[in-house]
C-alpha cells in the first residue's frame, strides 16, 4: 500500500486525528444532505472529545442534534432514520457505553436486512471513542471492537492515522451497510498528513505500513504506532518486520496478512482487546488453518491482559500491550 506512505509524505500542514474526525464528517455532510449527526453534547459543545467541533456552527441544529443520555434512543433512532432515507452518524461517547445500546448493535441493526429478506438497508455509522491508556478506569477505557466482531452484519472500522480517519469516514458514511467506527482516544492528539479532497479508503483494505522479511506484525488503531515503534527497535537488532495496519475487522483483509506471511513465515498480532475473545484470535485461527503451511514458528498474540482496565498508569501499562511486550514477543519468535 505504497499510496499510504505517499499520502503521509504529501501532506503539507499536518492535522490531528481529532480534527480529522470532524473534517471527515463535515466533508460528507457538505456532499450529502441526508447525512445528519446525533449524540450527547455533540452540538454547540463540539463533543466531549471535540471530535464534532465546528459541525454545529457549519450545519446548524437541523443537521447536528444533541440528545438526552439515552444510548438506546440514539442508536435506535439512527436505525429508524437510516431505514427511511437518512444517513445518520450517531455518536456513542465512549465505546464502553455501546453496552447500553448493545441490543441495537447485536440484534437489530445487523439483522434487519437479513431477516426481512433484503427489504431494507441500514446505512448508518455509529462512531465511538475507544480504548485505554489514559487513566479513565474500568468503565471508560475498553477497546471494544471485538464485541462488534462477534456480530455478523456490522462493518468495523478502526483507523490509525488522520488521513485514514477521513478516508474511512467517507467510506463508512457512503456505505449502505452499518459501520461501527472506532476512534481511538489515545490517538486523538496525534498528527499526520491531511487527506486530499475526495479521499476515500475502501473498507476492508489493510495497509502494509512497513515492509520487512522476518516477522509479520498485524495491528489495529493505537497498536499500529506501538507495532511501528517496536519494528524500529527490532530493526536496530537486525530483525526486519512487516507491519500490517488492518484498518478494519470486517471486512477482514486476510489476503494481505497471508501475503505478508508468505514473505515472513512468522506472525505476531498486536491488539488492545483482552486475549480472551480478542480480534487477534479470529485472525490467528484463520491463519492456523489457511496459512498453516506458511508458518515456521508458533503464532503469538500480544494482547490485553484478561482483567478490567485499572486506573493507575503503573497498572494500566501492565495490562495494555506496550512496545516492550511486542519486542519481546517478536524476538522470541524470530529465535524459534
Amino acid at each position, binding site marked *: 500500500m505504497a499510496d499510504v506512505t505517499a499520502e503521509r509524505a504529501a501532506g503539507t500542514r499536518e492535522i490531528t486525528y481529532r480534527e480529522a474526525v470532524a473534517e471527515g464528517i463535515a466533508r460528507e455532510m457538505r456532499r450529502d444532505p441526508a447525512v445528519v449527526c446525533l449524540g450527547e453534547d455533540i452540538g454547540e459543545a463540539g463533543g466531549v472529545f471535540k471530535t464534532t467541533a465546528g459541525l454545529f456552527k457549519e450545519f446548524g441544529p437541523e443537521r447536528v442534534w444533541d440528545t438526552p443520555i439515552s444510548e438506546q*434512543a440514539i442508536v435506535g*433512532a439512527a436505525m429508524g432514520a437510516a431505514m427511511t432515507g*437518512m444517513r445518520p452518524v450517531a455518536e456513542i461517547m465512549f465505546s464502553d457505553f455501546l453496552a447500553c445500546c448493545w*441490543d441495537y448493535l447485536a440484534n437489530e441493526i445487523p439483522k434487519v*436486512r437479513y431477516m426481512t*429478506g433484503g427489504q*431494507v438497508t441500514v*446505512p448508518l455509522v455509529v462512531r465511538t471513542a475507544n480504548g485505554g491508556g489514559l487513566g479513565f478506569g474500568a468503565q471508560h477505557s475498553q477497546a471494544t471492537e471485538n464485541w462488534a466482531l462477534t456480530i455478523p452484519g456490522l462493518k468495523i472500522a478502526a483507523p490509525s492515522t488522520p488521513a485514514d480517519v477521513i478516508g474511512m469516514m467517507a467510506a463508512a458514511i457512503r456505505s449502505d451497510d452499518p459501520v461501527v467506527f472506532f476512534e481511538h482516544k489515545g490517538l486523538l492528539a496525534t498528527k499526520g498528513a491531511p487527506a486530499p479532497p475526495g479521499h476515500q479508503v475502501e473498507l476492508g483494505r489493510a495497509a502494509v505500513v512497513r515492509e520487512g522479511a522476518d516477522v509479520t506484525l498485524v495491528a489495529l488503531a493505537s497498536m499500529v504506532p506501538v507495532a511501528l515503534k517496536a519494528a524500529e527497535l527490532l530493526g536496530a537488532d537486525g530483525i526486519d518486520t512487516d507491519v500490517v495496519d488492518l484498518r478494519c475487522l470486517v471486512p477482514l483483509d486476510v489476503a494481505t496478512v497471508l501475503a505478508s506471511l508468505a514473505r515472513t513465515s512468522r506472525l505476531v498480532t498486536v491488539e488492545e482487546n483482552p486475549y480472551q475473545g480478542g480480534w487477534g484470535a479470529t485472525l490467528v485461527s484463520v491463519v492456523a488453518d489457511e496459512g498453516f503451511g506458511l508458518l515456521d514458528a508458533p503464532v503469538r498474540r500480544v494482547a490485553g491482559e484478561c482483567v478490567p482496565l485499572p486506573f493507575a498508569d503503573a497498572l494500566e501499562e501492565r495490562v495494555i500491550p506496550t512496545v516492550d511486550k511486542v519486542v519481546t514477543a517478536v524476538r522470541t519468535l524470530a529465535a524459534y
Partner: protein
Amino acid sequence: MVDRDELLSLYEQMAVIRRTEKAAHDLFLQGLVKGTTHLAAGHEAIAVGASAALHDDDYVFATYRGHHHALARGATPEECLAELMSRATGLCGAKGGSMHLTKAATGMLGSYAIVGAHLPMAVGAAWSARLRGTGQLAVAFFGDGATNIGAFHEALNLAAVWKLPVLFVCENNLYMEYTPIADVTAVAHPAADRAPAYGIPGEVVDGNDVVAVRETVARLARRARAGDGPAIVEAQTYRHFGHSRADPAAYRPAEEVERWLKHDPLDLARGRLVELGVRPETVTAADDRARAVVEKAVEAAKAAPGPDPSEALTDVWADGGAAWRT
C-alpha cells in the same frame, strides 16, 4: 364518524386477519409452521382501526405479535402464511418467520422480537420524516409488557423533546407471556399513565372497537403531523389464543376469558354495521370473501416451494452478499 362502506371494509379486513390467525394456529398444530407464532386474534381492531387512520406512506413498526399489522398494512394472507410455512414466497423469503413479518414497500417496516426495541426505531423514522419534510407519521405498536423496559422510556422522552410525528400504540391485553401486567407494573394503565412523564397526551381506548381506535388514532395523528408532538394510545384488548405456540393460557380466569370473548371486535363491528343499516347478507358476504381469501392463501402457501438453501448466505450486506473477509 365512519360510514357504512368504510366500516364494512374494516370489518372485512378484520375478518381476514381473524381467519389468517386461525389458519396459522391450525397449521402450527399440523406441524406446518415451525418455530413459534404469536397470534393476534382478538387484537384485530387495533391494527385495522389504526391503519385506517394512517396515510399510505406512513411507517409502522410492530412486534413478534405482528401478523395483524402486516395484513392491515398491505401484506396478503398468502405472503404471511407462506413466511410462517418457510416458503420461498414468504414475505421475507422464509428468513424472517412469524416474528419478523415485514413489508417495507407498503411502510410496514418490520416486526421486532425484542420487547420494546422498535420504539426508538419508530422515533427515528419520525425524525427522518421531519428532516425530509414529508409529512409522514410513524407508529409503533407494542404490548403492555413493553412499558417497563428501558427502550420505552428513552423513546418516549426523545420523541417528546423533539416533538416528533410518532404515535405509540399499546395493545394492552392484560398479560405479558403468562404473568398479568398488573403484577409487575406500578400504575394501572401501563402506557397511558406514563404519558405525563413525557408531557404528552395519553389516551385509553377500547381496543376492540375499530371505530373508536380509528377515531383516536386519527385525532392524535393530525396533532402529531401538525407539529404538536407524539402521543400514547393505550388500546385495551384481549388475545383469543395463548401467548404463543400451543399455550392454552390456563393462567387466565375463565370468567375473564368469557367476558372478553363476548366483547369481540368482529361482533362489535358487526353490531355497528347492523345499526348503520347494513343487511346481514352483506356482512355474511364479507365473511365469505374473507374465508375464501384465506383458504386460497393456505393452499397457495402450501404449494409454494421452500427456500433455496444457498439463500442462507445472501442479504447480509446491501450488495446482497455475506462476505466478511477477503
